[in-house]
């Protein structure tokens, strides 16, 4: 556990010492504040569009941080040769995978927390009310979803040599699932066999990341998701992340590393 936490600590240090997070946060903050400062038809009470834009930017920034940070972990270790002094210590490859996952996921969580605090301040300053539990639920679900994304990208990073190709493929897959994943069953029904079975199979196999996107519930002030459903979604994410990490370990443990 100590080793895993030590590895995670290095990843987190890397995140806040690189400039990516600050650039994304400043961009999000500037765009949100700019949009919030615009007066539409002399009505200062309009708030939902600001929430909508802010949450969209938060989602984009979080995905960029998650995929960008994770995609370069193992390849950068190999390219920079830092993997050798690391694995020369009593560290297993499984611990490296789990440590990197923990670091990237925790780093995403920290970044997300900052974004959501900013969102809460901006939204509350206009609406004059803070649905803290709803915001926390939205944060939690997004963070848990990022766990699946991080695990997926980590698997990609041991399969693909170049971080750029891994990042591109991961972005496409994640965006594809977010936009289309929930509708593949409809698409499947419109296809002839055997394509129908294949598409339906894919529909059941993919992790349904779209469940974790509760932006509409926040923006339009709907009731929160039930806590039991939240817990089940967390369990689903943990299972998927575990499966993907196991796959990453299976691939990584066999990879020869030549000094």
């Amino acid at each position, binding site marked *: 556990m100590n080793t895993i936490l030590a590895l995670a600590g290095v990843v987190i240090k890397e995140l806040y010492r690189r400039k990516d997070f600050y650039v994304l946060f400043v961009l999000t903050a500037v765009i949100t504040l700019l949009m919030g400062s615009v007066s539409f038809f002399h009505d200062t009470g309009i708030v939902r569009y600001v929430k909508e834009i802010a949450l969209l930017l938060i989602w984009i920034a979080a995905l960029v941080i998650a995929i960008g940070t994770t995609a370069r972990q193992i390849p950068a270790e190999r390219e920079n040769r830092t993997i050798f002094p690391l694995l020369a210590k009593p560290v297993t490859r499984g611990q490296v995978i789990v440590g990197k996952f923990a670091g990237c996921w925790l780093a995403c969580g920290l970044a997300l927390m900052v974004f959501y605090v900013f969102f809460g301040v901006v939204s509350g300053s206009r609406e004059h009310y803070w649905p803290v539990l709803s915001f926390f639920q939205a944060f939690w679900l997004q963070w848990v979803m990022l766990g699946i994304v991080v695990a997926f990208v980590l698997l990609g990073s041991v399969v693909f040599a170049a971080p750029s190709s891994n990042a591109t493929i991961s972005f496409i897959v994640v965006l594809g699932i977010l936009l289309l994943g929930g*509708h593949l*069953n409809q698409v499947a029904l419109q296809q002839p066999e055997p394509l129908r079975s294949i598409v339906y199979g894919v529909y059941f196999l993919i992790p349904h990341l779209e469940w974790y996107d509760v932006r*509409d519930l926040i923006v339009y002030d709907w009731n929160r998701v039930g806590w039991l459903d939240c817990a089940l979604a967390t369990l689903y994410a943990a299972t998927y992340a575990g499966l993907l990490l196991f796959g990453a370990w299976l691939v990584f443990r066999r990879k020869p590393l030549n000094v």
Partner: protein
Amino acid sequence: MKKHGPYLILILLLAACFSLATVLQQRASAWTKRAQSDNVLKVLFGDGRRFFADGFFRQADVSFHSGFYPTIFDQARASQDTRHLTAKEGEPAAEEHEKQFNFLGRPRDWIERFGRHFAVTSHTHLEGKKEREILPWLKMSAELDPQKIETYTVSAYWLRDLGKVKEAEEFLREGLRNNPDSYEILFELGRLYSENYHDPARARNVWELALRRWSEQEAAGKKPDLRELDRTAVYLSHLEEKEGNLARALELLQLAKKASPTPAALQPQIDELKQRLTKRAPSIAPKTP
């Protein structure tokens, strides 16, 4: 001299640039207008801005429904019509919309069933002054595509409803500047003068202009919307009737009847007007359009 040389050259160049700028300024403003580079959105997006404008208009509709909206996979089943945005409860457009927007259906599997716990699944419309939340999207849509007429008419409807009559008039006038031939915008402007400013003279002028624009477009073979002709003629007819110009009112109702999808609904009104005209001046025969 050697030490100051580069600085002197720099100053000379700056002076030359400044002089050139003052000379070219007037010519440049003509170029930019022709190249449409006076608007940063046109430069950035080109014609693709219309795609984004449609997206923002759709976002206004999503906002109107508080997030309950069909995806592209449901669009085939749900109607593309956006008349519900300005239709009151009980009107045919609103009732049609209620039927068409029932796109969810029963969940097909456990994934869909579970997923609905995290999504908006109730069909609601904004009300109680919350309709103002759709205005930013409409404004952004108009910025990106000033030729999208619907944006102006829907915005004006809701601005009037929210008590922002002056803003509605300004926005419609902006729409007219960008679309001088638009009978739809003229109709909305007329409604504003009639219902909000209670200025029948201005309303009449604007509605008559709308009818003229409609006729011009028909003559040019552009196939203008018959529903708009029907609507404008009916509203103008009611105005004329209120002002006591029954002959003109009758003329307009008969015009509306030709364009109406339900001409039989107008017949009783036409008959009533004819009766009233006959009572008032039986010798005056109505003009045929």
